[in-house]
């Protein structure tokens, strides 16, 4: 278990309970059940307390937690016959973006998402979920294919943002992001987007310009990272807590602002403590959203999607 900074007191209690149990395992005469259970209860109370009123900055940390289920985990658990389709047909295959054909409850769909990787090797391979232009261009290709063969598109968003690299800029990542957003707005099939961790800026928009946008309870979606915002507006990257607060990047605030449609609840202690329940909850939400859109005509889907974005911003946080 990886503990976040604010979970330190919890780590201590859970560590103690674990230690007690380990000691008892080596000594048959020792009965620690009571003490360990008391510690468990204490830990749960503390966990409840910690997760009751999470600050936006803490939510950012949870959204980036390495133990959260990632795109690959959702695809493996929720889809069958996943058939990855690779490459942008121009330059490269971008491993930060997974994509391909799959079945969701037997229905064929196109699934596309950012994958961050789960250990050092895969994180480097996946470029920490930061796509290069080829990732967006592959997504464009797959969305286009989905449109022609009338397959709904499901995107799983989890990226710190686009990759700030020399090659990515030279190969036109701004243009690639713009075209991907444009493709999202053009396709005559249901487009459903779920933000499962970090929705980082343009890299997220390129996949999340959807008919329905859902967010996991502790995921975040923002125009800039709190650290980036702090270093520009506060001239001090250490002011990320203030920046996270000001940016209104939590699922709860975004729903109030009318930017997202649905919040998917996470188990107590976040998706990282209940990976299975989280994945199931995402599956259920996806099922509902797909069913809701499945009988709509292509023109209606395009028109409604555009209108949704044209209307965005007409209500503030006041309500």
């Amino acid at each position: 278990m990886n503990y976040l900074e604010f979970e330190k007191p919890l780590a201590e209690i859970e560590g103690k309970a674990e230690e007690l149990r380990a000691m008892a395992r080596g000594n048959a005469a020792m009965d620690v059940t009571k003490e360990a259970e008391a510690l468990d209860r204490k830990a749960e109370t503390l966990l409840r307390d910690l997760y009751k009123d999470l600050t936006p900055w803490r939510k950012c940390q949870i959204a980036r937690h390495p133990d959260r289920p990632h795109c690959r985990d959702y695809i493996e658990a929720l889809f069958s016959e996943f058939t990855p389709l690779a490459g942008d047909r121009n330059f490269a295959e971008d491993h930060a973006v997974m994509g391909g054909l799959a079945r969701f409850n037997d229905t064929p769909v196109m699934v596309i998402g950012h994958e961050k990787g789960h250990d050092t090797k895969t994180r480097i391979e996946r470029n920490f979920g930061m796509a290069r232009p080829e990732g967006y261009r592959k997504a464009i290709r797959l969305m286009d294919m989905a449109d022609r063969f009338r397959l709904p598109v499901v995107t799983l968003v989890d990226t710190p943002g686009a990759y700030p690299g020399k090659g990515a800029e030279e190969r036109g990542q701004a243009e690639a992001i713009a075209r991907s957003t444009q493709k999202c707005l053009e396709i005559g099939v249901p487009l459903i987007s779920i933000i499962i961790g970090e929705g980082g800026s343009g890299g997220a928009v390129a996949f999340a310009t959807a008919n329905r946008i859902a967010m996991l309870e502790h995921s975040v979606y923002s125009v800039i990272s709190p650290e980036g915002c702090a270093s520009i507006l506060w001239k001090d990257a250490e002011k990320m807590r203030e920046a996270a607060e000001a940016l209104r990047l939590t699922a709860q605030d975004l729903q109030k602002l009318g930017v997202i449609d649905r919040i998917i609840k996470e188990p107590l202690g976040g998706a990282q403590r209940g990976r299975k329940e989280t994945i199931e909850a995402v599956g259920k939400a996806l099922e509902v959203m797909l069913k809701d859109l499945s009988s709509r005509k292509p023109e209606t889907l395009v028109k409604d999607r555009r209108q949704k974005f044209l209307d965005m911003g007409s209500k503030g946080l006041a309500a």
Partner: protein
Amino acid sequence: MNWISNYVRPKINSLFSRREVPENLWTKCPECGTMLFHRELADNLNVCTSCDHHMAISPRERFRALFDGGIFTEVKVPDALVDPLHFRDQKKYPERLKAAQKATGEKDAMLVAEGEMQRTPIVAVAQDFSFMAGSMGMYVGNAMIAAAQRAVALKRPLVLFSAAGGARMQEGILSLMQMPRTTVAVQMLKEARLPYVVVLTHPTTGGVTASYAMLGDVQIAEPNALICFAGPRVIEQTIREKLPEGFQRAEYLLDHGMLDRVAHRKKMKDELVTILRMLTGQSPAIKGDLPPPDPEPAAVVPA
């Protein structure tokens, strides 16, 4: 929708709002250091007379140079919610907004106008870098949408002059949502088969580059303009190596296939007219600075 109900009453701005430029002031060219006489610089469209460095130019000044006789009609942009997030960094957002309004005399970072360029009717939209670094918030999104709708209503091409540091952080996620919103605006033009020409000026970066400023039918840039998504400093911090000379500048992008053309500000009007008249199937234009077009006869509304 009835186009008449959408019609915006013409306002002639160009004759009255010319910013007073003190005659005795000099500007130092940030590129070559030459001291330039203000009037001379303004007459040269803020391009250094010694080294051709293209300095920032306000949307109004640009429109005065662009449209025949300096005459244009402003297109009304729907108001946006002010400070929807109650954003506060070291200053409150509404204070920053007011300061920018006072300094520029403009409402926000985008101006939309309709008029004729060598008798070629267009709608133009220009971003104002001097207004909070031209940043894209809800007003800028509204301006792009209003510009596209006006172009569609009048069946005219749209020309964008971009200049922006990126999205307006003080509007948080709602600034980010201008990327899809402005993309919808571009689609309106596309569907109406109207040309959309983008002129990228220094600097155009971030979410602006990654949306409406990269979706033109024709992409032109002013010389040496910085055009990028992630800025050079961010990249240098990431890859920890020096970037090549001219990286992310207009000529570099032209070389890498990201632009159609790079054109000098003083030649931009001819350039635009030539391209737009061909795209819209019109006869070649008479080049040069033309006087204002004849006043249009008052619209006759059938009884």
